[in-house]
């Protein structure tokens, strides 16, 4: 964490998405991350604040639940309903997407298998992520953290689980073309050890079905 404390003045914007901004900032003497939902000019203020507030609450609820069922996520340190933002633990490490480029084949498979176990545990615990990609996984020395539950939900529907797998599969395919089969295969191995062979097969079938419907089209 000293990496950031030393060189930049905080708060520092580190990511801007369509919906939220992510800042590094100082929180009681250490570095933390703030996720702040941006006000949108295309919504009347009353509607805008209602949506931002309820989504922030929903997301922090999901993260809290994930932690309870043993899925590592950054610890939430503060929730500020007024500004529709929350502060969470800073996880020092690359995204899994970046890490997979630089590690040995053996570690690569270990990481993906571990991710499979975590996602399975999340699904078994009644949560779906909704935007599962290898950019939304942080790796701190091999310990994986899931982030960005903004599109997540409390759900045990096969359909929602299938979407998670489909999105991850697509993300792996688009960034690691040649390794795709190896890493998604390792992921599935980890996934099936937790959910069992039957549920694993059902989820894969559902994923293929959703893909055939063609709704989640490739990037232009």
């Amino acid at each position: 964490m000293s990496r950031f404390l030393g060189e930049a003045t905080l708060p520092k914007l580190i990511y801007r998405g369509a919906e939220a901004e992510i800042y590094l900032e100082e929180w009681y003497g250490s570095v933390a991350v703030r996720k702040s939902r941006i006000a949108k000019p295309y919504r009347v203020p009353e509607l805008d604040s209602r949506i931002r507030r309820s989504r922030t609450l929903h997301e922090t609820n999901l993260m809290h639940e994930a932690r309870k069922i043993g899925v590592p996520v950054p610890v939430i340190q503060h929730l500020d309903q007024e500004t529709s933002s929350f502060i969470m633990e800073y996880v020092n490490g690359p995204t899994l997407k970046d890490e997979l480029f630089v590690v040995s084949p053996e570690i690569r498979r270990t990481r993906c298998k571990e991710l499979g176990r975590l996602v399975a545990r999340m699904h078994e615990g009644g949560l779906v992520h909704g935007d599962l990609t290898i950019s939304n996984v942080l790796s701190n020395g091999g310990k994986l953290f899931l982030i960005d539950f903004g599109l997540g939900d409390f759900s045990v529907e096969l359909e929602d689980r299938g979407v998670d797998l489909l999105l991850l599969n697509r993300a792996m395919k688009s960034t690691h073309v040649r390794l795709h089969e190896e890493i998604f295969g390792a992921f599935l191995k980890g996934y099936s050890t937790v959910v069992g062979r039957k549920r694993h097969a059902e989820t894969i079938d559902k994923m293929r079905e959703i893909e055939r419907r063609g709704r989640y089209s490739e990037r232009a």
Partner: protein
Amino acid sequence: MIILNCLGIESTAHTFGASVVVEQGEILSDVRDVYASAPGTGIHPREAAEHHSEVAAKVISGALDKAGVSGSRLDGVAVALGPGLGPCLRVGATVARAIASCFQKPLIPVNHAIGHIEIGSLTTGAIDPLVVLVSGGHTAIAAFSGGKWRIFGETEDITLGNLYDMFAREINLPSPAGPQIEKLADKSSNFIPLPYVVKGNDVSYSGLLTASLAQLRSGATLADVCYSMQEISCSMLAEAVERSLAYTRKKEVLLTGGVAANKTLQKKLSDVAVLHDAQPRIVPHAYTGDCGAQIAWTGLLALRAGDVASIADARVKPRWRLEDVKVSWRSDAA
């Protein structure tokens, strides 16, 4: 140099339209006759089709006369074969097949949704836009890739046009109801919370319709409900468009289709475009609604690319999906 022209015939829903365009994109004529349903009722497919058969000859000869082109001087006859209402589509298809075989001209099948996109591109100068297609039959966000329009987001149930029309039907307004709902909404700024449902890049409007009608029954004023429903429905679409725009990084947003005439929607989508350094492109009012020009121009593009059909193959396709059409005249952006 020979300049190609094309006759286009539109009959997918309530409008029977005909138009002649030439290669440079000039619209020589655009004639239409719209079937009007009684207030409080929707479009009746058979009655609309009867209307179309009655006006077809008048509309088509009007379009040819105004363009100063006789049937024998046409280079192609384009017709919207879908998506749309079967009985209505069959009128346009029958007439088009007759004209094409009588004058021995190539027959060009056109997808109505692509027609909206191409007339929007022609009239706004959009080149490689993120398309927001809003009409009675569509609420879809699409971008061109790999020779086809790919759907990035769409409604999971009823379309934005449906929402307005179904609401209007319940309160005895005639359809298409968008302009009247807009007028009523302008009288209010009292916001009533109603369901706002965005799932990723998709929207869902059925809950909003139910809740809006329930508000009305429990005593809210019509103006307040119209204002709130319009605000929410347009904001939902704006958010879905923003997500797609952040993802595709397109530099133009093309708003096209009948509901593109809605000022609130125009404003909100322009706001979204600006947030992402993209240019808003809004189809001019004259070409928002269904018209022959959208079919004629798309037909001309297809004709130039050699996409013609034999008369026997030109059958109507009421459920012809936008993303199933192979588009030969566009190429992917670099």
